[in-house]
């Protein structure tokens, strides 16, 4: 029991060194709790494009776990460095190593209990509060409500049991190999010069290269999610290796250039940075990775939020879209009745007869129907007759029986020839607009094909979709679109409701479908608002984590640099120069991680873009804009945090 008391006393008495450690551990527990609660929130599944959203947030949660492990070992080693002497003293005063192990075990146990309690409580309170704010903003019907996930909490506890165990083992190892006499004597035995690890440098560049290559070349990150996850892991690995080995190798290279190295400012910066990199590589790399994560999360969620109108316009160019089988007279009539009842002026009304979206896939240079083989490149075809084309556009098609006109609604189809099943068509012309159909980037390529006449069109349908269960695809559909002139939301809502009722009564042919822009707008704004909110919680948590590392870094560096700058001043370096050198070092340390994060972000951009495409957002300029804006915003916050913590550093270093 004496050891338990001693352990408790140690924690209390050493609170100057322990307090930051506690805060960081509590913060890590809280961070994991919040991310787990967010990821496992039932509301996530209700999001349009839920699968993709869950994937991003899961990735975030995994990265948080990786970060927690690395960072807790980092803070522990910082603590250990300061306490080794204390252990030596206890040893000299008569505590055997076995007692020391037990003392440290008690300490770790107490720390674990304390941080777990503090962290879980903080995390739950923070999450609860945030969800309350969310409710306030979005309204009572919010999809995202606070709920505690037992599994999530269990995961958090499991992670930190493992982390505490690792910390204990590291502490025990330190005690095991310590020699008390040496410890008491040598206060500051000089640190070894870091070696430049060529192998590790190569590993850094190779894994970054491969990771970047995958990130850029993967077309559909959701399909290739495993590969994409590996790409992320490679980039993380590469970042750590880059900071640990690459930076030292570069600095050593500079050191070997006498004409560069023996300039007053380079001389001191380069040699100091070598040591700095050795001690702080892990910290800086963590900052770079967390910053990237913040930026990606913010870019995606803010783009979604800002791009709402865009997505709406792309997905719903018209207020109301009604599709029904051509021969479905009942539906048409029902709709007519509703329109007459409301006497609403309708604008831009158009209609078009075509097939449904026919699912086909590439097989060699042919397109075949889905049922035959499995492939990864689906194409949607929508066929219409030349007569219909002439009616809608007012242009003459003049097609012979083996010619078609195509229109790339989404994606690219560059060939001169279009082969559907066994039938070969020459593409006579590619058009770039068609009333009623708006070009959009959707994940699946879609091609509109104008057939020479009804006979050819029916042949294609019969040959490729001739089976009994394909009856659905053989139907011709009449799509009617129109805008509702009135702006009064009450009238619009009532009108929409009646339309829906009228259509739902007519299930004839299974084709009748009604899409109302207002409905989609309502549900999507709630969901996207919620999504933005979750992204902001995530971003905030990451920013706090980043701030914490920067703070730790400044303290640990300040203590070491104090002695160095003191000597330099005695040898004849003036005060201003000291300040300039300190400033330039701080700037390098400040910009290096954020620059790496910016490069990461650039390579993550295709991922961001294709992910947003799955949500229906295709406005590249908008995405670039929000990405740049979030990067700039983040840099400002980062800079403020840095300024605040730099003060701590200056205070330590200056005489």
């Amino acid at each position: 029991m004496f050891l338990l008391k001693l352990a408790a006393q140690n924690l209390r008495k050493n609170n100057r060194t322990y307090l930051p450690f506690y805060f960081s551990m509590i913060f890590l527990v809280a961070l994991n709790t919040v991310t787990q609660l967010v990821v496992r929130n039932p509301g996530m599944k209700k999001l349009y494009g839920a699968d993709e959203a869950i994937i991003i947030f899961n990735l975030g949660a995994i990265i948080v776990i990786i970060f927690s492990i690395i960072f807790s070992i980092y803070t522990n080693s910082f603590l250990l460095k300061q306490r080794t002497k204390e252990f030596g003293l206890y040893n000299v005063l008569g505590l055997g190593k076995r007692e020391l192990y037990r003392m440290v075990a008690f300490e770790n146990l107490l720390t674990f209990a304390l941080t777990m309690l503090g962290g879980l409580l903080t995390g739950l309170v923070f999450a609860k509060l945030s969800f309350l704010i969310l409710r306030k903003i979005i309204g009572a019907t919010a999809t995202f409500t606070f709920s505690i996930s037992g599994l999530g909490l269990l995961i958090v506890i499991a992670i930190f049991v493992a982390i505490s165990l690792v910390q204990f083992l590291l502490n025990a190892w330190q005690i095991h190999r310590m020699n008390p006499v040496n410890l008491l004597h040598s206060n500051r035995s000089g640190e070894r010069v870091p070696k430049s690890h060529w192998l590790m440098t190569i590993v850094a560049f190779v894994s970054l290269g491969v990771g970047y290559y995958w990130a850029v070349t993967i077309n559909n990150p959701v399909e290739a999610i495993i590969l994409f996850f590996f790409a992320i892991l490679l980039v993380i690995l590469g970042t750590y290796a880059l900071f640990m080995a690459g930076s030292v190798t570069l600095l050593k290279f500079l050191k070997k250039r006498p004409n560069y190295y023996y300039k007053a400012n380079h001389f001191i910066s380069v040699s100091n940075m070598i040591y700095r990199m050795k001690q702080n590589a892990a910290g800086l790399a963590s900052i770079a990775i967390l910053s990237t994560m913040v930026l990606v999360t913010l870019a995606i969620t803010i783009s979604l939020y800002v791009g709402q109108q865009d997505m709406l316009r792309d997905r719903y160019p018209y207020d109301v879209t009604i599709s029904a089988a051509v021969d479905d007279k009942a539906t048409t009539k029902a709709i007519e009745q509703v329109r007459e009842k409301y006497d609403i002026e309708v604008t831009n009304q158009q209609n078009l007869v075509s097939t449904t979206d026919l699912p086909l896939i590439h097989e060699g240079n042919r397109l075949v129907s889905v049922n035959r083989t499995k492939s990864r490149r689906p194409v949607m075809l929508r066929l219409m007759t030349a007569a219909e084309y002439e009616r809608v556009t007012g242009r003459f098609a003049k097609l012979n029986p083996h010619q078609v006109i195509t229109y790339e609604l989404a994606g690219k189809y560059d060939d001169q020839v279009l082969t559907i099943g066994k039938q070969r068509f020459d593409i006579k012309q590619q058009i770039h607009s068609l009333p009623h159909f708006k070009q959009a980037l959707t994940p699946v390529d879609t091609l509109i094909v104008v057939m020479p006449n009804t006979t050819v069109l029916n042949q294609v349908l019969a040959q490729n979709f001739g089976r009994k269960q394909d009856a659905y695809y053989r139907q011709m559909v009449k799509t009617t679109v129109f805008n509702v002139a009135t702006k009064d939301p009450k009238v619009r809502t009532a009108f929409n409701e009646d339309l829906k009722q009228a259509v739902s009564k007519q299930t004839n042919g299974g084709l009748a479908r009604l899409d109302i822009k207002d409905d989609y707008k309502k549900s999507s704004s709630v969901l996207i608002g919620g999504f933005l909110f979750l992204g902001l919680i995530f971003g905030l948590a990451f920013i706090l984590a980043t701030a914490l590392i920067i703070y730790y870094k400044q303290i640990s560096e300040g203590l070491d640099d104090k002695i160095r700058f003191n000597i330099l001043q005695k040898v004849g370096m003036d005060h201003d120069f000291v300040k300039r050198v300190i400033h330039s070092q701080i700037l390098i340390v400040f910009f290096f991680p954020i620059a790496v994060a910016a490069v990461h972000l650039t390579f993550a951009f295709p991922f961001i873009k294709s992910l947003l495409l799955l949500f229906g957002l295709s406005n590249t300029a908008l995405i670039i804009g929000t990405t740049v804006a979030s990067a700039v915003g983040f840099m400002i916050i980062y800079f403020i945090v840095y300024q605040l913590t730099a003060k701590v550093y200056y205070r330590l270093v200056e005489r």
Partner: protein
Amino acid sequence: MNMLEVKHLKKIYQSRRSSLSIEALSDIELEVQPGEYVAIMGESGSGKSTLLNILATLDQPTSGTVKINGEDLGNVTEKNTAAFRREHLGFVFQDFNLLDTFSVKDNILLPLVLSQEKVSEMMVKVTAVATPLGISDLLEKYPYELSGGQQQRVAVARAIITKPDLLLADEPTGALDSKTTGQLLDVFDQINQQAQTILMVTHSSVTASHAKRVLFIKDGVVCHQLYKGDKTNQEFLETINQTMTVLLAKEG
């Protein structure tokens, strides 16, 4: 002209919180000729470190003047003290004060780099200094790989590479054992023979016995001085010890 001239030097430390003030130096008079080797002795608290800090421009006197090579330190502005230190003074400290992030060579080159000399000249100078000090084999090593005596010789090399007017040494043998103390003092003799002016502060009579003149400081004034003349080190040591006994006895 005197290399160093100190007149009526007074230093009072005023405690920031209370009105209590401590007079570290009351009235110091001191002259050093070029090429001299002077040791200043005194007990702890006698004010010898304060004196050295003022000579080193690390501290300012309350009153009195200090002239180095004719230049009044009072006229050197705060901004220029660093440059003045670099150009006119060399330092050897008790705890070496080598930078652990620099190799031996870079530690020695530090003042030259700060003065922005040409790289080719630096390399010539570093060899010229290191060889007589017996550290030319250690140039690529790092301070933590060296013994205390070796580290102090590196510090000496760093101090004299700029060919300073005055070499100031603060307890240079304080952290060394008797064997390396002997070696370091030989180094000092050797560089003094090459006309380097040395002013050293110590409380070790053995160390002081290598100097050509020894000054004793007590209660903030120079109370006595001895010239070595043609005495051997051993004879001079005995004289110093006797003097110290007498000085101490006065107190009792």
